[in-house]
């Protein structure tokens, strides 16, 4: 009797869990859909007004009702690229140092520090950027300043996630390489990186997502210059989230619709970036799994 009771109970738990999982998943999807629908609806007027020029033209003048978002899209991608170029090597290096090289007495405080940094509010980084980078180091307000700030902001989270991913490399995988006479670097190349590849791309993507959507820090140091499409990192520019943060409060009508359209664009870009990343990761995992 007891056995059959046990059986029934575990079945119940199983079903409850499944229901819960389905409900949670649907809720997320419904919320996402709702956001997309309401936002798109309110972005529609400006898209009707500007057509595709919204994405391809470069003038943004609220008083004249001209909204060309290209410089902001460019600025977002440009600063995010600078941020990744700076943050990824540093993050990976630090994560590898912590997991593979650092002695235990150093490892603990470093991990603690990183996890702390990962949760520092972005406005703190932004102010630091204004005070130290643009004023003290004379970088001014520019794509580069914004890129550096974003890099500083996303480095802890990328490092923190990378460290966790790398830490999951089984000891036996590492020993496999070491037992063949590999040095530490060769071991990292043979065991740690292939094992962690997917997770590392995920970590970088999370960092990229944060860099793309970062408002306050970018708004403070990017310079809010209009119409800038240039690869000169010292030029002032603007990015989508910075424009939204700066202009939303006092906007109305078409201007507000244009800002919402920027948000939708940002949303779509972020989703595309993540889908591409997921595809890259899955392909690389499939290849190493050999299926």
């Amino acid at each position, binding site marked *: 009797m007891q056995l059959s009771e046990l059986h029934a109970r575990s079945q119940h738990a199983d079903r409850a869990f499944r229901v819960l999982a389905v409900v949670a998943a649907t809720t997320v999807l419904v919320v996402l859909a709702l956001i997309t629908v309401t936002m798109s609806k309110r972005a529609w007027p400006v898209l009707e007004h500007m057509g595709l020029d919204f994405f391809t033209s470069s003038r943004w003048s609220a008083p004249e009702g001209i909204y060309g978002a290209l410089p902001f899209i460019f600025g977002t991608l440009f600063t995010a690229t600078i941020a990744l170029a700076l943050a990824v090597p540093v993050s990976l290096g630090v994560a590898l140092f912590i997991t593979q090289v650092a002695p235990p007495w150093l490892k603990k405080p470093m991990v603690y520090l990183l996890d702390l940094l990962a949760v520092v509010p972005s406005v703190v980084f932004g102010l630091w950027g204004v005070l130290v980078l643009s004023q003290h180091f004379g970088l001014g307000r520019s794509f580069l300043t914004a890129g550096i700030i974003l890099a500083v902001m996303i480095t802890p989270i990328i490092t923190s996630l990378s460290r966790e991913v790398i830490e999951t490399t089984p000891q*036996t995988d*590492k020993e496999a390489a070491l*037992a*063949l*006479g590999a040095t530490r670097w060769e071991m990292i190349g*043979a065991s740690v990186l292939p094992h962690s590849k997917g997770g590392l791309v995920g970590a970088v993507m999370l960092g990229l997502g944060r860099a793309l959507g970062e408002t306050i820090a970018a708004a403070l140091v990017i310079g809010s210059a209009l119409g800038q499409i240039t690869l000169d990192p010292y030029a002032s520019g603007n990015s989508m989230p910075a424009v939204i943060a700066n202009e939303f409060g006092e906007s109305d009508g078409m201007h507000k619709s244009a800002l919402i359209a920027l948000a939708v664009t940002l949303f779509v870009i972020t989703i595309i970036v993540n889908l591409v990343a997921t595809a890259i990761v899955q392909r690389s995992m499939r290849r190493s*799994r050999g*299926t």
Partner: protein
Amino acid sequence: MTADDSHDDIPVQRAAPRIGHRGSGDPQVAIDTPVVFDLEDVAVYYGAFRAVRGVAMKVLKNQITALIGPSGCGKTTLLRAFNRMHDVIPGARVTGKLQYHGIDLYGPQVSATEVRRRIGMVFQKPNPFPKSIYDNVAFGPRVNGTKNKIELDAIVEKSLRAAALWDEVKDRLGSSALGMSGGQQQRLCIARTIAVEPEVVLMDEPCSALDPIATARIEELMRELKSRFTIVIVTHNMQQAARVSDRTAFFTAELDSANDRRTGILVEYDVTQKIFSNPSDERTENYITGRFG
């Protein structure tokens, strides 16, 4: 049991020391077999915990030496001391004399990576790299400086053939090693290890995850490889030890009165035939006859 039958007529000397092979009267030892590893009073610690102590034994060239004993007696621990695998475990250290061809393995001038190039290891659980079959085998030669594609191709084929895997995988060398069966993976790990042409191959329960057919193949493989390599194998399988090894070391764990933990000791080390037919120590006899406890 063909080649090893010659050991049958070695006289048993009750008076011989229980530990080590000295004076056991094995003619092969005394006359022509070079000593690969020479251990005296070796102990391995994990932090303050002493996992094995007082090990003294000689591992002979081109022989298969089996380490047996109950779980937790320190077989793996000792095996890893042979190629300085403990270096990567924080807090682990090896004391005592552990010589490899007369050189102190743990001497200040000795490089651990150099040691591991000569003394390879096959692990209990197959652990191929998440890379292609080819890259798995070519990894060792590559880190040892072989970059030439033709040379690498030759090494890969030779190693896979030696590991009796070539025919099964020759058409899919580029596909991932993780897509292979467990037995294939273990043979790939053996191929990977012998691809660097080590002198010694250490194997830690290489067949524990395999079915009898795969086990038989790997045992056959070991006998074939014996002419080229010196093999030290840890096994829980008495029949396996008896079937493949030339010499057997029996370990057990005894309570350490100092800290109330169990420390592994070498009870008896001798020619396999003798260990299994006529052990000197009662504990060995109890263990191999299944009366352990």
